[in-house]
């Protein structure tokens, strides 16, 4: 069995079995965590293989190459799959040890992971849609799984807005198929140069809207704060740390990978929307008191950096976008998991996360910001460099506002003060520091990711 299929083959039966089990029992939760850990190990092995030996391909079911669905892992897909599944693992363990697990929580997390793994590792546009819907449906159910009516309300809005995005994606995919006659990403990238510019522009805009909704970019962000603010911490961490990666990956893959000509046309607009997103997110975050709302607006703001990098274009900027997505996912997962806990250990972990988001060495976030900075300098774009400074400074303000409000005050109430949950948060903080201290593997992979995106169009 190929290393590419193995994670899916491990996750899929486990997810189907987990539906039958009662997720409130601890052993079920731990079993699910074990399966996810195995998937993380397999994906790490896959990432090493991709980093040393180049992209891995498999045609599912042993069909001839132009009939079957092709699974394909290049550096970008393997890297994001690894990080997303690791974030889901941390959130699952957090949910299980803090007794916030509901009956279907482990099963939904596993289904979400199947979807995530599949969509990052597929080389086919339509199976991307199928995996993507699988992950999204699990996410809608997770967001609605709380006990309060308010949560179901915000989950419904989340579902309606994102489904609208999904159907736009489907329409764009149908149009793309009509124009190119194929669904395989590499072939699409080759054919896309010759299609009518007007059609290509429509497809490109539809994809942009679909993924912009997913990522929570400025004009499409309105569903995001209420969902991130009301979901349980584990679910919010998954939404911000794993699902948001779909949006970033989609923008990179479909815009920079498949339709680079249209992307270059819209570069100025993208940088503009990205800048507005960054400033809007930061200003809104400063104005909020509730820690989760601050983090939600911070998530909106940080989505803007990916867009700015995409607008700058070129190998360095695309690699920076990939690297930034990875570090941002880790940071957001850490902060969302930490925000409801108290104590000196969590306070320290939160500070690590806050420094990382702001981009202070030796945290992982430093390299995310530094690579963006590099991209800005290489493109000799002074506004981008200035934007990075301003954005970083604003980030400091709002994150240390939270820190001051919550960790500098004597604890008034013990929110589910489980020791295990605090250990999960501490482990994530150590991971963020470790990536910051030994960034070479991540840098190498994201470099290759930028290369892989440029090489999709020969």
């Amino acid at each position: 069995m190929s290393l590419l299929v193995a994670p899916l083959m491990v996750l899929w039966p486990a997810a189907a079995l987990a539906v039958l089990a009662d997720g409130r029992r601890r052993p079920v939760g731990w079993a699910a965590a074990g399966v996810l850990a195995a998937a993380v190990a397999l994906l790490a092995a896959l990432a090493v293989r991709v980093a040393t030996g180049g992209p891995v391909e498999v045609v599912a079911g042993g069909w001839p190459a132009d009939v079957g669905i092709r699974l394909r892992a290049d550096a970008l897909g393997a890297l994001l799959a690894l990080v997303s599944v690791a974030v889901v693992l941390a959130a699952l363990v957090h949910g299980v040890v803090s007794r916030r697990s509901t009956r279907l929580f482990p099963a939904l997390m596993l289904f979400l992971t199947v979807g995530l793994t599949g969509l990052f590792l597929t080389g086919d546009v339509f199976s991307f849609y199928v995996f993507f819907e699988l992950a999204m449906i699990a996410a809608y159910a997770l967001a609605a799984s709380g006990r309060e009516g308010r949560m179901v309300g915000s989950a419904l809005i989340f579902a309606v807005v994102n489904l609208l995005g999904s159907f736009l994606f489907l329409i764009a995919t149908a149009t793309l198929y009509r124009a190119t006659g194929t669904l395989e990403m590499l072939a699409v990238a080759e054919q896309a140069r010759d299609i009518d510019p007007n059609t290509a522009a429509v497809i490109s805009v539809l994809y942009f809207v679909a993924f912009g909704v997913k990522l929570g970019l400025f004009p499409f962000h309105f569903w995001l704060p209420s969902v991130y603010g009301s979901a349980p911490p584990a679910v919010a961490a998954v939404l911000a740390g794993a699902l948001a990666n779909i949006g970033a990956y989609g923008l990179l893959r479909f815009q920079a990978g498949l339709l680079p000509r249209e992307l270059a046309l819209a570069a100025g607009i993208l940088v503009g929307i990205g800048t507005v997103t960054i400033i809007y997110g930061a200003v809104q975050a400063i104005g909020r008191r509730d820690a989760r709302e601050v983090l939600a607006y911070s998530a909106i703001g940080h989505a803007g950096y990916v867009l700015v990098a995409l607008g700058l274009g070129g190998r360095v900027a695309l690699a920076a976008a990939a690297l930034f997505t990875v570090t941002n996912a880790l940071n957001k997962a850490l902060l969302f998991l930490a925000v409801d806990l108290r104590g000196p250990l969590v306070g320290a972990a939160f500070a690590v996360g806050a420094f990382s988001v702001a981009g202070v060495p030796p945290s992982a976030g430093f390299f995310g910001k530094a690579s963006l900075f590099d991209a800005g300098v290489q493109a000799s774009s002074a506004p981008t460099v200035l934007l990075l400074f301003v954005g970083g400074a604003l980030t400091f303000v709002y994150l240390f506002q939270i820190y001051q409000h919550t960790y500098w005050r004597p604890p008034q109430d013990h929110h589910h003060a489980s020791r295990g949950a605090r250990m999960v948060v501490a482990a994530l903080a150590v991971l963020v520091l470790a990536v910051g201290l030994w960034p070479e593997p991540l840098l190498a992979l994201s470099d290759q990711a930028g290369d892989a995106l440029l090489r999709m169009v020969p």
Partner: protein
Amino acid sequence: MNLFLALVVAVLFGTGASLLLKPDLFRVVAGLMLISNAASLTVITSGLRRGQAPIHPLVPGEPVADPLTQAMTLTALIIGFATTALLLAMAYRIYTTHRSVDLDDLSRSERTAEEELERGTAVEQVETEDAEAEQEAAGTPR
């Protein structure tokens, strides 16, 4: 034929979009259903060509209808069906908690709940809910 189908898709999408903007939750779900069907119809239209059914054995020399769009449409319909079921379940859950499916009512009751929470009147209720949750967790067999 293409123009006709394009018009049908446009009407479906437009009706769905206008339903989506209504304050009634079930209308919102129905609107999304229409949009999902508009998307499915777009998919099947994207491979519209006349020919024999793509089932083995094929008559050689004659054109074959595109099987790929049919497979895609089936998948898209199933996904649309699943999401509709999920949305309806969520809308029903909102109805059972709030006794209303009107979005304006919902946001009003949300606001009053938040104000109560700020004033501290609802704190006790939240605490008892938490205690119940713990009991529930402790009561389940291990």
